[in-house]
């Protein structure tokens, strides 16, 4: 074999490996979705998603997981809104007052590192804080802890969106004599669709996170009622149903997982649509 053939073979070999890796990943993703769908569809019923658990639910009794669905939605909504109150000014601050400075990069580093902190650590911190403040496991404590998990995700995603805004926009606005704050308003208008995407992304992550709400939000069979009461969440509902020894309850866990996966799919689909559709007033 001459040199040219060998090089061609090498090229084909590595392209083959790379394509196989990518195809393997897609295949695994397909298997995950297929297994969850096939096993979940059997136990899925209208009763499952429209009723709270009745007594004896975990022994195979009637009822559904409405408590967990509503609880998860409440937790994720609260956490996203709370995180938004901090993350949005933070990201805008980096792009109006601190553009491309060392401090902005420092903040980015801190946010990236916070993104990497496992949610169980946030959960333990939330628990320590609860003990300190004399709170019990409740929707409020869960929202506070989940907001910490979601904050860096929201801030960094929104930061990336702001990075895409045209440079001319800043120069044009500031050259008209606008203050930085007035420029911030212009920038916010420009980045609004991106903010929606970031919010939905954070919301999706909030729904799926279990380790942080495990200590702090508790679990209950009742529907969420007040900020000071415990709430159920979908991931924990799946986990608890799975820990029972009864096959019919476990089958419900599969159905709950399907519900959770569909919720996540819908949210991420909305996130992608919002990026495309809401850009009516955006300068490109």
């Amino acid at each position, binding site marked *: 074999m001459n040199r040219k053939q060998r090089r061609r073979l090498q090229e084909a070999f590595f392209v083959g490996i790379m394509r196989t890796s990518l195809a393997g990943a897609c295949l695994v993703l397909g298997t995950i979705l297929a297994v969850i769908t096939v096993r979940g569809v059997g136990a899925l019923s209208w009763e499952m998603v429209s009723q709270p658990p009745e007594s004896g639910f975990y022994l195979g009794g009637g009822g559904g997981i409405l408590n967990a669905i509503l609880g998860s939605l409440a937790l994720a909504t609260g956490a996203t809104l709370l995180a938004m109150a901090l993350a949005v000014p933070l990201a805008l601050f980096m792009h109006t007052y601190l553009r491309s400075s060392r401090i902005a*990069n420092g903040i980015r580093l801190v946010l*990236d590192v916070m993104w990497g902190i496992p949610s169980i650590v946030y959960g333990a911190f939330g628990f320590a804080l609860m003990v300190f403040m004399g709170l019990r496991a409740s929707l409020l404590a869960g929202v506070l802890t989940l907001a910490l998990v979601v904050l860096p995700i929201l801030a960094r995603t929104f930061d990336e969106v702001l990075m895409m805004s045209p440079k001319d926009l800043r120069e044009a606005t500031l050259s008209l004599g606008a203050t930085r704050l007035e420029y911030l308003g212009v920038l916010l208008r420009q980045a609004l669709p991106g903010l929606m995407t970031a919010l939905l992304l954070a919301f999706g992550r909030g729904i799926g996170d279990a380790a942080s709400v495990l200590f702090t939000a508790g679990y209950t069979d009742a529907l969420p009622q007040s900020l000071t009461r415990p709430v159920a969440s979908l991931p924990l509902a799946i986990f608890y149903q*799975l820990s029972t020894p009864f096959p019919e309850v476990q089958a419900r866990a*599969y159905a709950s997982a399907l519900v959770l996966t569909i919720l996540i799919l819908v949210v991420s689909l909305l996130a992608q649509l919002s990026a495309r559709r809401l850009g009516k007033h955006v300068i490109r």
Partner: protein
Amino acid sequence: MEAEIRRDGAVLTPRYDAAPGRRPGTARVIKDHLARTGMVVISAATCLLVVLIAGALLIRSLPLLRTQSLGELLTSSTWQPSHGAFGFAPFIAGSIAVTAVAMIVAVAPAIFTGIYLSEYTVARTRTRLKPLLDLMVGIPSVVYGLWGILFVVPLVRDHVGPWIDGTLGQVSPLFRQTNPSGYGLLSAGLVLGIMVFPLIVAVTEEVLRSVPHEMREAVLCLGATRWETTLCVVRRRGMAGILAAVVLGFSRAFGETLAVMMLIGNSVQVPRSLFDSAYSLPALIANNYGEMMSLPNYESALMAAALLLLAVVLLFNVAARLVVNRLTARS
């Protein structure tokens, strides 16, 4: 005072906020300054959160650290909370082992996929493939755990396990199928590897794409194949970045809780074989929060475990992020 209309149509309105001695537009400037101060406070508070978290966990774990030295806690393998013996060694060993399995599974395919996305695909293919990777990140860990129970555990128990036991198991006790249940390091590691795969892909791709195009063009001009060009790019700039991607993947895997807890078998022992069940640090915290208050120093021990987790993840993350930032900023 009335508005004055100039000949070219501009309307000059009188300034109502103009107090004597003040410069024009002062209210706007004051507003600007107030907003700035507010945002400085928010940013500082956010950055201090990490310190606050570490501080709170440290304070809560002090009662335990007073009675036992750190070295003793990290190396002792007796875990008997009712006797006041808190040895973290089995959990640390379990966490490291399961993460190692995950990395062995994920690293090579993830790096190849990252290279493929950055060097071999056009922008349109990338934008089509991106949502798939995002979806892999977005799937909750409890769903991964459930998939592991339904699909990976039976696979390991009935097919992979006997096969590895029959071949490699004859050579080394590391590969003996000691545990017929299927719940153990291999199952948990496989699922964990799939979970960190998209992260490693994303960082690898980001780092490689920051290498300037001129470099690739120069190498291609000399008649190199695409793969040879890739090797050049990786050798020149990508090595540190790929290493950083792996470290980031490692620290993400190290802190993963629910999926590992559902698959690893949760028995307190230092694992000796790929199939042994073990116990990871995050699972320790998550599984025992219920009894936390019942025994002296128990809560403190779990907080110390969280602190340990935080310390490892912070160390790895800061180092890797600094490398990535430096590589991507230079272009």
